[in-house]
């Protein structure tokens, strides 16, 4: 029993918070101004708690298992949620359904935690749905905005379709092997055509959630239409969770097929980088811009995945952490600006630095980190990904990845140029930044600077295996 509490600690805490919020909702209305700090505090507690009492083990006949790496990944997710709750303060204070929003978000988080720990395909499927459906609802949270509902519609339909494909694949796997337990699958997996087909069906669902080209088409539309808090959740937390699971599934369950999926990953990685970058070049809306940039980033993550080694897993986890703080910083700035001025276009950012130097620096730092420019952490993240990906010795692959860094630098610099260089007669006036937002931006910036230079963090992740 004690083991149950230890192993499912994060899930339990998240569940408790969800119920707590439900009860609060049932009770009489509390003003957002009072409720929000409380929620933020609780989420902080959740994040801090995720570091303690982590033990390895499994439950329910291996349906649920956890280890220190998974626990660390869960901490990253909790951190992401906490930071989002801070960064979106402006928007959250205005929203009329604050508890519901967090109930949905935490449900999704719960789904993701379960997903990371899932030990068989059933739990995997259930938690995946749990991690997806609430996000679709969240996308619609700007109830009166047309774009928000369009985004939600696209999200739910696409994800339902993709889970249909996923299920078809799972059913085939079940038909071939007779088992849905991860631990048994590698032994039973044969290289038959049907199995490969089932694998591709299954993989497409991952690709869909990670927005790997050519399964990425929903991404930009949904990112653009959703509220920024949701967009950042979608692009950071959700993506991180799926990436972590993809690592375990590919290198664990589908190890026998590794020659096949290596090729697949390489091709899709190149495609993602190219398409993501090429689309990002022309974007005007900052959210849409970040959507395509995140597609390109996923291409980079796949470089690390292709390495198929422990150090590759560490690099991906490390990179996701860096990617999270960088992207959240960018989204945080976008959110502040969007909430206070309603401006979301890159051209509106011209001359931002003049009145808002802090926002300008944070945004620049975040974008440099995304572009992989030292001394920001993004440089280290990307380099480690390339280093592990290069272990297979495919110079062409590494070269394409490196060349894509040039294209991506171009469009990141476009934003930097707007912020620092371009002239504007009516720049965005001085914005007030709320304390929680400031705190979160500070945390993100400091992490962006320090995560890379402090090499022991990577070594720590590496030691978790």
């Amino acid at each position: 029993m004690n083991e149950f509490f230890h192993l499912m600690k994060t899930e339990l805490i998240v569940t408790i918070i969800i119920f707590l919020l439900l009860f609060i909702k049932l009770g009489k209305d509390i003003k957002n101004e009072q409720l929000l700090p409380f929620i933020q505090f609780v989420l902080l507690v959740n994040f801090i708690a995720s570091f303690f009492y982590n033990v390895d083990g499994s439950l329910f006949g291996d349906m649920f298992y956890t280890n220190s790496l998974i626990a660390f990944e869960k901490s990253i997710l909790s951190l992401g949620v906490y930071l989002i709750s801070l960064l979106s303060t402006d928007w959250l204070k205005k929203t009329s359904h604050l508890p519901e929003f967090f109930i949905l978000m935490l449900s999704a988080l719960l789904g993701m935690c379960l997903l990371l720990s899932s030990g068989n395909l059933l739990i995997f499927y259930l938690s995946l749905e749990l991690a997806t459906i609430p996000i679709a609802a969240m996308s619609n949270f700007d109830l009166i905005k047309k774009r928000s509902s369009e985004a939600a519609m696209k999200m739910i339909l696409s994800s339902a379709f993709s889970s249909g494909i996923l299920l078809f694949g799972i059913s085939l796997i079940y038909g071939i092997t007779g088992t849905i337990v991860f631990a048994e699958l590698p032994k039973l997996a044969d290289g038959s055509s049907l199995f490969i087909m089932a694998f591709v069906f299954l993989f497409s669902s991952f690709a869909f959630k990670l927005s790997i080209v050519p399964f990425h088409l929903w991404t930009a539309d949904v990112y653009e239409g959703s509220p920024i808090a949701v967009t950042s959740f979608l692009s950071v937390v959700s993506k991180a969770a799926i990436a972590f699971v993809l690592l375990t599934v590919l290198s664990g369950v589908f190890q026998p097929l590794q020659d096949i999926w290596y090729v697949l990953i390489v091709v899709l990685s190149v495609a993602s980088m190219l398409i993501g970058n090429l689309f990002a070049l022309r974007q005007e809306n900052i959210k849409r811009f970040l959507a395509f940039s995140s597609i390109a980033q996923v291409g980079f993550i796949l470089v690390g995945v292709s390495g198929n080694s422990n150090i590759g897993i560490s690099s991906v986890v490390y990179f996701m952490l860096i990617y999270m703080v960088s992207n959240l910083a960018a989204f945080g700035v976008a959110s502040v600006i969007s909430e206070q001025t309603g401006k979301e276009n890159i051209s509106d950012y011209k001359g931002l630095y003049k009145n808002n130097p802090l926002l300008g620096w944070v945004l620049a730092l975040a974008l440099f980190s995304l572009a992989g420019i030292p001394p920001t952490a993004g440089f280290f993240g990307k380099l480690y990904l390339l280093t592990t990906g290069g272990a297979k010795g495919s110079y062409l692959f590494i070269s394409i990845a490196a060349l894509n860094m040039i294209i991506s630098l171009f469009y990141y610099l476009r934003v930097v140029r707007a912020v620092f260089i371009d002239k504007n007669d009516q720049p965005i006036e001085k914005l007030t930044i709320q304390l929680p937002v400031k705190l979160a931006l500070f945390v993100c910036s400091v992490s962006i600077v320090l995560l890379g230079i402090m090499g022991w963090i990577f070594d720590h992740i590496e030691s978790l295996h």
Partner: protein
Amino acid sequence: MNLLLLLGIPLLTGLLVLLVSTKVQVRWVSFVGATAQLIASFLLFFAFRTEIADQNTAQFLFEVDYTLIESFNIHFHLGVDGISVAMILLTSFVVVAGILVSWNIEKMTKEFYFLLILLSLGAYGFFLSLDLFVLFFFLEMAVIPKYLLIGIWGSGKKDYSANKLALMLMGGSALILVGMLGLYFIGGHEFNIVHLSKLTISTDYQHLIFPFLFLGFGVFTALFPFHTWVPDGHSSAPTAGSMFLAGISMKLGGYGCLRVAIYLLPEGAKEYAHIIIVLSSIAILYGAFVTMMQKDLKYMNAYSSISHVGFSLLAMAMLTQTAITGALMQMISHGLMTALFFAVIGMIYDRTHTRMVDEMGGLMKTMPFITTVFFLVGFCSLGLPGLSGFVAEMTVFVGSWQVDDWFHRAATIAAIMSIVVTAVYILRAIGSTAMGPIKNPSFATLKDATWNEKLAAVILLIGIIGIGIAPSWLSNLLKPAAEIITNRIMGK
């Protein structure tokens, strides 16, 4: 001598610049920091000389080694040999001068100085590091400050130039990255330059990886035909930006070509030396001819930089000890000279508000100091004895002439021919700006250099004349290091 000091001073200066409030404080903090760094560089130089005099035969001195990331075998590994010491001296000279000439920047002063110092930090780190990863880190770190310096404080078509510069340099570093990772895997997960230099890497691999590394660093040092960022970048950059760009940043590339590409992959260097020689001979002559046709002083100096840097690439590819020493001397000399050149152009531009050669004239009458410096630096550029350019070029020529076959001889003659063309464009620039009648009546009332400009010019002139009059200290500093490189090329 602890090498961390050399990184610590700029880092501290940068942080202080961010902390202080007024523009005056920013300037003085930067200036004091840069001067302290200059003193530290001299301390390093003397400490290095003492060690050498004490028969310390280690390849790299004052090594510092901290494990950065164990899993990847990345070390924060610093150390210096003669080449690094010389490069660090060069950098600290240019930095002090650059900070001095920027004294009157009023727009976003704090940011400006911070970026300058960040850029210099990148250069110092680059010259100090003995670990490829750290080296690459510092190399890349210097890219974005350049972009911002040009973009924010630049002039002309600065957007285009800044973008071109950042993207082309990024392209260069992408190539370096690939080459570096290649070395890493071939060397058995090793980024350490010292260890890598002890390995015997199979010839095929060397042939494969060498182009990546050399071209990559070549982009930084304006290897033809990847030089096109140079003219636009330099001409749009603010004065100090151009000085740093040409004086320091282009040297990063040259240093990398030598230290990483040629030193670690000697077989590759031998294989591709012919191509490099052809490209750099083209760069030398073609750069000189294009310079001759320019009307804008900054474009002129930018193209002449392409031509001058071509000398060092040419000399490197000759693969003899004298030539490599010459290449390094040329890098140092060109760094000082071109920084001064840009400084002078900046001073002239600040006053006349034009950089067009044919709009000026007779400036000698109103600004004797500036034009005298202009004369001196022009003479340095065309290789006048007593100034550093001569010594460097002669070492290059003598070194190149040692390789006796028609191909190398022809390349050397082509290179020597460029000194005539250099004379043509330098005299044209000097003749139509400083000499002749005053064309624009408003120029008759211009003021001569201010104290900070004078100090900047004098500091760089000390370097130029110091090398020009007594070159052997520099030559002796560089030669042992060059010998190690040539020994590896010869397979000793």
